[in-house]
């Protein structure tokens, strides 16, 4: 077992942040005990500003007193530092490159635009939805066969096999049912995106995701409030 003080793991994050959630998923998958420090993004702690002076953002993982920023890099750090338990990245360099490629793709090309779908309405929202569907089609057509090359493109996700890209996808669209209810439209249609749909369901069936997901009613409420706030600001 890890010693108490020297190896202490602290995660600076926020309850709402999908980026914080990614790190929590990784820590939980590896059964790493950690202290969660809830940051107020409107009143960032001195510690946070000191630990992430470049971007001043959450999450920041602090291990042995040293801070690491950027959720994707924090997860790679966790993978490299705690060698036991589920491997968050494949051993094989080629498979690993595919996980990195798609995790980065989802982050760069889907995250902001999904956020836009939630935060806007009318024409702006329509444009965003079209883009989301386009990008998800690329994941469907090109991504699944590369990510799940062992199972011929069939998404299989367990607590033991969960990887960086599953984690990123989880924090993108795991609550797709809630999205559909709040927005009144399908983002992940099982007819046009059967693989992505299957992937999300497989992710949501894992224990680690179930443990970290609030009850459905609460997710709905959070999403509704977030959307209302965003719409009233614009």
């Amino acid at each position, binding site marked *: 077992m890890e010693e108490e003080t020297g190896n202490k793991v602290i995660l600076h994050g926020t309850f709402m942040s999908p980026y914080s959630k990614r790190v929590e998923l990784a820590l939980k998958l590896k059964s790493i005990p950690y202290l969660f420090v809830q940051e107020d993004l409107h009143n960032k702690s001195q510690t946070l500003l000191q630990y992430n002076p*470049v971007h001043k953002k959450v999450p920041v993982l602090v*291990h042995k007193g*040293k801070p*690491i*920023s*950027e959720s994707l*890099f*924090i997860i*790679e*750090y966790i993978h*490299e*530092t705690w060698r036991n338990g589920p491997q968050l990245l494949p051993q094989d*360099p*080629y498979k*690993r*490159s595919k996980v*990195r*490629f798609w995790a*980065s*793709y989802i982050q760069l090309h889907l995250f902001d635009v999904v956020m836009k779908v939630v935060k806007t309405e009318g024409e702006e929202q329509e444009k965003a939805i079209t883009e989301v569907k386009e990008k998800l089609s*690329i994941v469907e057509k*090109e991504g699944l066969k590369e990510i799940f090359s062992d199972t011929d493109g069939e998404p299989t996700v367990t607590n033991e096999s969960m990887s960086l890209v599953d984690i990123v996808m989880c924090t993108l669209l795991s609550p797709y049912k809630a999205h559909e209810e709040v927005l009144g439209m399908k983002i992940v249609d099982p007819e046009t995106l059967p693989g992505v749909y299957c992937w999300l369901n497989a992710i949501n069936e894992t224990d680690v995701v179930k443990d970290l997901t609030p009850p459905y009613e609460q997710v709905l409420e959070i999403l509704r409030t977030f959307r209302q706030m965003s719409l009233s600001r614009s």
Partner: protein
Amino acid sequence: MAERSEEVKLLGMWASPFSRRVEIALTLKGVPYEFSEQDITNKSPLLLQSNPVHKMIPVLLHNGKPISESLVILEYIDDTWKNNPILPQDPYDRAIARFWARFVDEQVYVTAMKVVGKVGVERDAAVEATRDLLKLMEKELVGKDFLGGESLGFVDIVATLVAFWLMRTEEVVGVKVVPVEMFPEIHRWVKNLLDVDVIKKCIPPEDEHLDYIRARMESLKLKSV
């Protein structure tokens, strides 16, 4: 060395910083490779087939299997050929290196592109913004020969984009984005880079490169008219 025939092919472009950084990595590790110059205005079937998602160079083909995105390729190269490691060994140092590499590509590059792409007040703002970002890089270099420490590393390879593209663009654009008075450490670092054989060998030859940048800027101007 290799037990079976290793086929390494790079689909690249001579003037692209993203393509050249892969060449630096392969050369540093002594990996023999075939370079295939791509015409990005008329993309080859091989390129489109190897990178259907982005349809961009560079693409590394290792025994026929394609890897895209220069940072993903660099990590793949480091994972596959273990000699002359590019990334540090320690997980914390690796996280820091990845952070800075991403900073160069997603912040510095994007902002610096606006220096080339804009004029007037917008250009001035882009210059200011780029300098603000580079000040962080400047701080990182204090007391170090390279961004990787004592020797060339991952971040240096990625940041050749600053040393040999951004700084060369200054000549063409006529704006000193990175003046030596403001960025003495960066200038010292560029000199250190030029002392490294692999870098000398792998960066585009200066004259041809400047001509290319000039020609590209002209065509950008024509497009915006």
